[in-house]
């Protein structure tokens, strides 16, 4: 049986892996916004079409591969939760017993994987 401490560490890491895809996408979006500003600057004569096309394609790649939880990420979450359910009636009972609160990012990921967690066991702070 996994320890409460290791479970907490794993869920924090998995939640961060999930959310860093969105953080990555935010940086790509910021790049796109900078191009928009440059295009409004009439003193510049560059054609930004190819760059914007590259940004949009990269945006899609990041969206598909990193913002949406990958199959391998969901597999880890499912196996982790099933591991808990072998010994506890529910994930919430396990969390309450260990006085653990999972991060909001992991709670969202777990929901994606089919295991919802009650709000009392989520660190909303």
């Amino acid at each position, binding site marked *: *049986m*996994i*320890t409460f401490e*290791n479970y907490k*560490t*794993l869920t924090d*890491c*998995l939640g*961060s*892996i999930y959310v*860093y*895809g969105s*953080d*990555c*996408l935010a*940086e*790509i979006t*910021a*790049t796109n916004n*900078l*191009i928009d500003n440059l295009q409004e600057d009439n003193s510049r*004569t*560059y*054609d*930004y079409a*190819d*760059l914007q*096309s*590259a*940004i949009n*394609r*990269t945006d899609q*790649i*990041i969206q598909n*591969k*990193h913002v949406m939880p*990958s199959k*391998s*990420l969901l*597999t*880890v979450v499912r*196996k*982790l939760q*099933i*591991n808990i359910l072998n010994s506890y009636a529910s994930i919430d009972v396990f969390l309450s017993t260990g006085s653990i609160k999972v991060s909001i990012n992991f709670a969202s990921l777990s929901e994606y994987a089919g295991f919802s967690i009650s709000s009392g066991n989520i660190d909303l*702070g």
Partner: protein
Amino acid sequence: MAEHVGRAIGYLYAKQLLAYSISNLVVNSDDVNTIQTLGLATSGLYNGLTNNWRNDLTILIPELFTLLNPKPTVIKQSTTSEFVNSVLSTNGFTVSYLLSQAMAQSGLVIDPTYISDEGSWRQDFTIQIFDEENKKYFHFEMDIAADPSFDMILISKDSSSDQFGWLYQKDMNQFESIPSGGVASNYAGRLIRYRSNDSESLTRGSVYYVRLRQKDDLEIHGYVTSSMVVHT
């Protein structure tokens, strides 16, 4: 733009590092059941994320550096390592290590001279206006922490006591050191920047939490918080 792309890669690299630590934690667990249940899945996650940061931006990077070409032509010139290195040299720019690695994937080899020092970082904030009636002079306090609740503050800076590393955006592409008397409120909307020194290096691929607040002679304003990934 290179800074944003560098940070984008930084987050992908951070995912790889986290997957590595997850895999290690499981493999080194005392519990055989945990290893059997999660071992294969966590190593699969790590393998899937390894080197993603090198590959996922290879469409964007050559286009980004083509933009630097001062003579855009109808027939587009391909971006070369020589060209990029010369632009970096002329402008005194450096790029992050992670960006340079992703560039290498696109065939662009950056001279190590133009790669930022490992662990260096910078943080930008927009200067806020609080009182449009009266001109004020602002100083800035910034904390860098390892956790979002700022219980583990690693670095604290105050521009009123030491201006070293603090810059403000005087013109669109020009940053200057903050005067000892502070930054005038008519610069509101422009950027304030802190650039780390050698003793303030942070771990590459780690995410840190940043909060900054403005202050003037009369009051200290509320914190603006953000996070950053070290990508140098």
